[in-house]
């Protein structure tokens, strides 16, 4: 009677055995393909966060089910990870014995010739050359055709096309390198987002990102580089049709000591790279400079970052918020900016600033700044409307009922950078190149084996037997074999000048 441990052991062995079969690897490969499809059909937290939230609002039950199944983060879910982990284990268990066999094969002596006559391709001719000389010639001819040649009594064994197996091994092992590159890059890298208004300087440090940057498991805060960029100017260019043409930020690089270190341009497709950190042009928007005064006291004089709900629809006004907690009671302003009111009021896209105009609504009460909140919105639970609101253009001043004055002194733009460090990209690139490098011989070369036997015949001649086969591309080998056999059995002197016929003297 089998004990429980024995049963477990047996089933483990059978699982391991099935993992080692190519069929299992193939099925796992297809399972990974099917699994990854889900991530493109269900919105993913990493790519389309708003769509996920919308699903929770519109279809709460469905969203709950998706969440339980991990469908909002397919590529980080336990079941997807399990699938590709199993695939990689299965792959490794196929590759290890293959690699071993391949290495053994490298040092192995060629197989002795047996039953040449029965091989797929076989020719026999008699040539008037001594056997040793015939074999010498054969060795030269085969080497010239880039066969590996080894002596096998009584003749030669030749082989070609080992690149097929070595290429295949290289390709498959490189897939593991892809995993190494991804894990290393994520572990020691980070991703963050930075919003910088024209004229301001941003420093690459943990605290200066819009939100805390997403840092890898092995990334320490001290690994931030400390260089800075001062945004001199941002420019969004549009085609006459209103389609975007180019977004560019002109920046001055500031080194770790605070000294300017040259002018750079950051554009879409042209990131700035400094100390292994890359800055990508991500977004932009308007930042009106608002000076707020109360009884000749300057409460604020800062550019305020305005946002838009959809960056692709420039017909909508930009929205911004000013919070004035130093007043008693607190005052908050909601502002709408029309960079180009003439175009905007008729529903056209506002591509550039032309007589920019601000509308505002004022609120009074408790801003509740003791709670965490967005800088882009007012928490209105403790606020009441304050005055009728109104509008004012660039260079003008609005006055609230309590005497607070808001001056619209300047309209600047801000630029948004995706800031990223990924030390794994080099490994990924190497892995990708190795993959390709292995793929080509693995798919296109074919293994071929040839044997040449020289048997002494009468009158110092040789009976030359040539035999061989190909494991792939057999039709092409047919021609190759015919050509090789023809060359080997050609009478000396027919193709090249024979030694004896050389003119003497």
């Amino acid at each position, binding site marked *: 009677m089998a004990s429980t441990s024995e049963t477990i052991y047996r089933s483990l062995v059978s699982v391991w055995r099935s993992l080692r079969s190519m069929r299992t690897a193939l099925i796992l*490969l297809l399972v990974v393909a099917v699994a*990854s499809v889900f*991530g493109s059909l269900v919105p993913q937290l*990493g*790519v389309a966060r708003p769509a996920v939230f919308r699903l929770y609002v519109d279809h709460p039950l469905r969203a709950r089910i998706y969440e339980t199944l991990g469908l909002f983060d397919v590529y980080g879910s336990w079941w997807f990870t399990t699938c590709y982990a199993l695939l990689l284990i299965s792959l490794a268990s196929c590759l290890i014995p293959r690699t071993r066999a391949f290495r053994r094969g490298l040092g192995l002596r060629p197989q002795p010739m047996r039953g040449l006559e029965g091989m797929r391709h076989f020719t026999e001719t008699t040539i008037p050359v001594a056997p040793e000389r015939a074999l010498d010639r054969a060795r030269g001819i085969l080497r010239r055709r880039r066969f590996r040649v080894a002596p096998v009594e009584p003749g030669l064994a030749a082989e070609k096309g080992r690149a097929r197996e070595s290429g295949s091994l290289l390709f498959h092992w490189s897939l593991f390198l892809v995993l190494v590159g991804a894990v290393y890059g994520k572990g020691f890298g980070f991703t963050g987002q930075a919003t910088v208004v024209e004229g301001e300087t941003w420093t690459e440090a943990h605290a200066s990102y819009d939100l805390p940057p997403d840092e890898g498991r092995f990334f320490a805060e001290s690994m931030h580089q400390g260089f800075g960029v001062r945004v001199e100017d941002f420019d969004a260019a549009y085609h006459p049709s209103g389609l*975007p043409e180019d*977004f560019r930020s002109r920046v001055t690089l500031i080194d770790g000591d605070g000294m300017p270190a040259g002018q750079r341009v950051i554009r879409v497709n042209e990131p700035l790279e400094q100390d292994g950190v890359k800055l990508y042009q991500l977004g932009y928007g308007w930042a009106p400079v608002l000076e707020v005064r109360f009884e000749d006291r300057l409460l604020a004089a800062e550019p305020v970052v305005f946002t838009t709900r959809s960056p692709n629809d420039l017909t909508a006004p930009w929205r911004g918020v000013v919070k004035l907690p130093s007043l008693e009671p607190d005052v908050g302003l909601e502002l709408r900016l029309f960079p180009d009111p003439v175009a905007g009021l008729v529903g056209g896209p506002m591509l550039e600033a032309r007589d920019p105009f601000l509308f505002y609504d004022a609120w009074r009460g408790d801003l509740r700044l003791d709670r965490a909140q967005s800088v882009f919105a007012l928490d209105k639970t403790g606020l009441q409307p304050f005055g009728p609101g109104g509008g004012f253009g660039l260079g003008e001043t609005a006055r609230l009922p309590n005497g607070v004055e808001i001056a619209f002194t300047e309209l600047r733009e801000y630029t948004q950078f*995706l800031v990223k460090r990924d030390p794994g990209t080099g490994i*990924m690139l190497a892995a990708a190149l190795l993959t390709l490098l292995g793929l080509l011989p693995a*798919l296109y070369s074919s293994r071929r084996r040839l044997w040449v036997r020289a048997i002494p015949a009468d009158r110092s001649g040789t009976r030359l037997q040539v035999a061989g086969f190909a494991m792939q591309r057999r039709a092409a080998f047919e021609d190759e074999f015919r050509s090789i056999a023809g060359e080997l059995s050609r009478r000396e002197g027919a193709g090249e000048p024979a030694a004896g016929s050389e003119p003497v003297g």
Partner: protein
Amino acid sequence: MSPEGLTGASNVAFGVALVMYLAASVGYFHHLAFRRRGVLVVARGTAYAGAVVHAVSLIARGAAAERVPWGNLFEYVTVVGFLIVAAYLVVERLWHAEAVGGFALGAAVAALGGATIAYVPPGPLVPALNSYWLWIHVVMATLASALFTLGFVFSVLYLVQERREERLAARRASVPAREPALVAAGAADRPEDYVSAEEPEESGAPVHPSSRSRLPAAATLDRYAYRTIVFAFPIWTLAVILGAIWAEEAWGRYWGWDAKEVWSFVTWVVFAGYLHARATVGWRGRRAAVLAVIGFAALVFNLTVVNTAIAGLHSYA
């Protein structure tokens, strides 16, 4: 010529090419059915001429937009259609595969006809596409797509032909004395050759298992499909790698599981599965061909549904 003039010329040439492909396709089918040598010559000539006219259309469009003519969905599919014809003409030369010409040209007609749904006049590129990577990444992707399409055509024909050969073999088994010639020549009586290699046997002329079948034998079609796909696979791999390099340049990450990336990956995996299936006992032949069909379906899904219905970074292409 003005941009408007070039656009007009490009569109006219596009229409002419489409009609010529259609005519060539009909010609190839006629040849398949009735074996008229003259019709074949005319069909082939029409296909070549159509490709030239199509090339003119592409060049004019590029000139009108002042950029490479593969910057949006319409242009992408148009280029794929062009490359299907070009690849088929090469294949015809190499393998004398005239019998499948009607299907290949038909695929090109479908591509061009489908592209017109997504027609937009030539215009500038969105900033994210404005990169030299557009050249090479898209060329590789379109070329691989065209070859996968041919592989799909061969695989479907293989499935049809294989089924027919099987039926014939069954009938032969039940009536052994009636058709001795077919028994000697059929592919079914050499199964050991067929399963012994990744690439099926090709020595021995492909023999039609039925005098009524004008298509190549199933084994031949299988070989065509394999060769096309094995050629396309590294190109697709390269296209995906180049896309990753470009994504790193443009979006700050080489891989982000964007819908387009997911489906490119799925396509890659399915065709990788196809290549492995042929080396796996029990998966050769029919199952492998089905995988090729699924791979093509993933490719088409990536171009149609992913571009139009799923929002993503690739939404413009």
